[in-house]
């Protein structure tokens, strides 16, 4: 016969284990539950057409999320990611319309993104500024400049090759070129963060800046590099977005930086830095995007969609709090 006390103890242990397990894999559980729930509510959710929509919609914000995750790991944020995407994407469309070749256009856009990233990083390290406030300022500045240049009018006349950057089907009906670019970025950044000195420096600087400095890391240089890389990813996201929209839209991608940050935090990154990884962030953005996609399929009111999406972010962040403090 079992000792009742022992029996009680093992039951408590089991409870703790299941709680731990839930907290550890909460994002993955939410993702699976969402997929099952939406597919039960609407048979169209898992239709080829809707899966295609999802894979065409996710790369822009997904690439921005990957960049923001890298920044969060380093203990910094970037609210100007959306404006960088709009600036670089619109500039790319302008150059494409003017007849520049694809490599020149894409390279120019990425250089523009790197430039704005450099500006962000330089001011943050040179004047020891809070990245949240500085990038809030540059967000307004970058958006203002591109709106001024274009006077708020869309750049049209996109050549076919530019449109096909995002919209070419690859093999199956629901995978597009922009999905492949997103996958390539995820794989490359996962490798960089896990297997290179650059990635290790990100975790070191984000965990304990002083310890990182004492161990010989040039923190200022590293932060500028991270911002430049993140800026170039935002620019790439902008090019794919404009290709998807078939115009150069200077007002697009507003709020992308904040949304990407929410996705990265849902996926395990933390504002305090030193924590998080790219696959987790991808799960985070998938969770949010599947939710938004499901709500759109159900034809819910726009305002309710916004409110429910915000609610999901709040719940996910609270779950994340418990996960980190268990």
């Amino acid at each position, binding site marked *: 016969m079992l000792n009742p006390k022992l029996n009680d103890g093992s039951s408590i242990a089991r409870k703790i284990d299941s709680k731990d397990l839930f907290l550890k894999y909460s994002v993955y559980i939410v993702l699976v539950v969402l997929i099952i729930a939406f597919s039960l509510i*609407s048979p*169209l959710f898992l*239709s080829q*057409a*809707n899966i295609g*929509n999802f894979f*065409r*919609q996710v790369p*822009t914000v997904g690439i921005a999320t990957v960049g923001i995750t890298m920044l969060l790991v380093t203990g910094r944020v970037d609210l100007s990611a959306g404006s960088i995407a709009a600036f670089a994407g619109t500039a790319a469309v302008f150059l494409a319309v003017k007849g520049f070749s694809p490599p020149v256009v894409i390279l120019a856009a990425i250089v523009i993104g790197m430039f704005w990233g450099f500006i962000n990083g330089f001011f943050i390290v040179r004047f020891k500024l809070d990245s949240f406030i500085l990038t809030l300022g540059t967000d307004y500045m970058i*958006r*203002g400049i591109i*709106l001024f240049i274009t*006077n*708020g*009018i*869309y750049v*049209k*006349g*996109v050549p076919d090759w530019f449109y096909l950057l995002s*919209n070419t089907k690859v093999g199956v009906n629901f995978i597009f070129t922009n999905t492949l670019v997103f996958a390539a970025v995820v794989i490359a950044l996962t490798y960089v963060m896990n297997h290179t000195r650059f990635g290790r420096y990100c975790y070191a600087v984000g965990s304990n800046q002083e310890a990182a400095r004492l161990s010989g890391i040039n923190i200022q240089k590293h932060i500028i590099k991270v911002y430049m890389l993140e800026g170039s990813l935002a620019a790439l996201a902008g090019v794919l*977005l404009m290709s*998807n*929209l*078939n*115009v150069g*839209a200077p*007002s*697009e*991608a*507003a709020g992308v930086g904040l949304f990407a940050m929410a996705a990265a935090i849902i996926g395990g990154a933390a504002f305090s830095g030193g924590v998080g990884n790219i696959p987790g962030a991808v799960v985070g953005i998938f969770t949010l995007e599947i939710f*938004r*996609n499901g*709500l*759109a*399929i*159900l*034809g*819910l*009111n*726009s*305002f309710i*969609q916004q409110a429910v999406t915000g609610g999901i972010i709040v719940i996910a962040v609270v779950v994340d709090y418990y996960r980190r403090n268990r």
Partner: protein
Amino acid sequence: MKKKILVLLLIGIMMGVLTGCSGSDSKSTSNASGSDKKTLYFIPIVDTGAYWSPMKKAAEERAKELGYNLVFKTSPPSESQKNEKHIGFLQEAITSNAVGIAIAPMDPDMFDRKVKEAKDAGVSIVTFDADVKTKDNRAAYVGTDNKLAGEELGKKAAEYLKGKGIKNGKIALAAVNLTQTTMTYRQDGIRKGFEGVMGADAQSFSWLEPIQDNDQASESKRQLEGQITSNPDLIAVFSLGSEGPDTGVMEAIKSQGKAGKIYHFGFDYTPTWENGIKEGLITGIVDQDSYAIGKTIIDVMDKIIKKEKIQDNYPVAVKWVEANQIVEYGKDKQKQFTNETK
């Protein structure tokens, strides 16, 4: 003793500051521009884009011809405290002793009190694009009647669908901002016009939840793609407000392979429509003559200042333009854009 000196010093500084402030006040109330020209304030919702840009150009040109100093005040489309800021512009115009103010109030109630304050201060107000709640407080309204304009679009859409033999199906609508008064009036008008033409068949059409995209084409595209996927019998979409929903709707129709199967009816001309003509992504638009609106506003203000008789309302009619006429129509329209929009 030291304390007394310090207190006296502080009082002296405060007096100096206050004197300086009152000095600058009296300076600013003498004339907003510092010249002998009378000052008019022009406060549109934004001053960029295919609708607002010709209006700005017309107002500038007309004010110059008539010898006024025209002060433009507006804020970026993404301004977070837009209403508050624009109410502040009204106050600034009153303080600056402007002789007239032309304003596009974003909400009829919100701007009502401040417009009354302007009237009480002896400043004449002309509203455009949208009106204030208490019509007695403004001298005149210039612009489109948004309900009638919506009705015209609804009628034309219904006639088009009828011509195609379509008697049932679902209808979607995407707008920049569903809560803006102009948008709610247009929505009401569209339904009224559509139902008027369709008659008894109107009951066979159902309207999906309207989409708000805050001028983000990617957002209206995403939401409409979902609606197209879940509603195979979707036959028409209306887009209102700006290039964001216009582009989002066209690209959603394109990505879902529904070009020529879902009919798209838009509001206002933009060169962006040309992207969708060949592929059948736009069926037709109603366009407001914003250049005429801009010119009329200044003319009406001039009449008020010269104490000439004016009307209460200066309606500017919308024009229906089918997709195959948009390019030709746009050639004249683009001449009205300010230089920086070309």
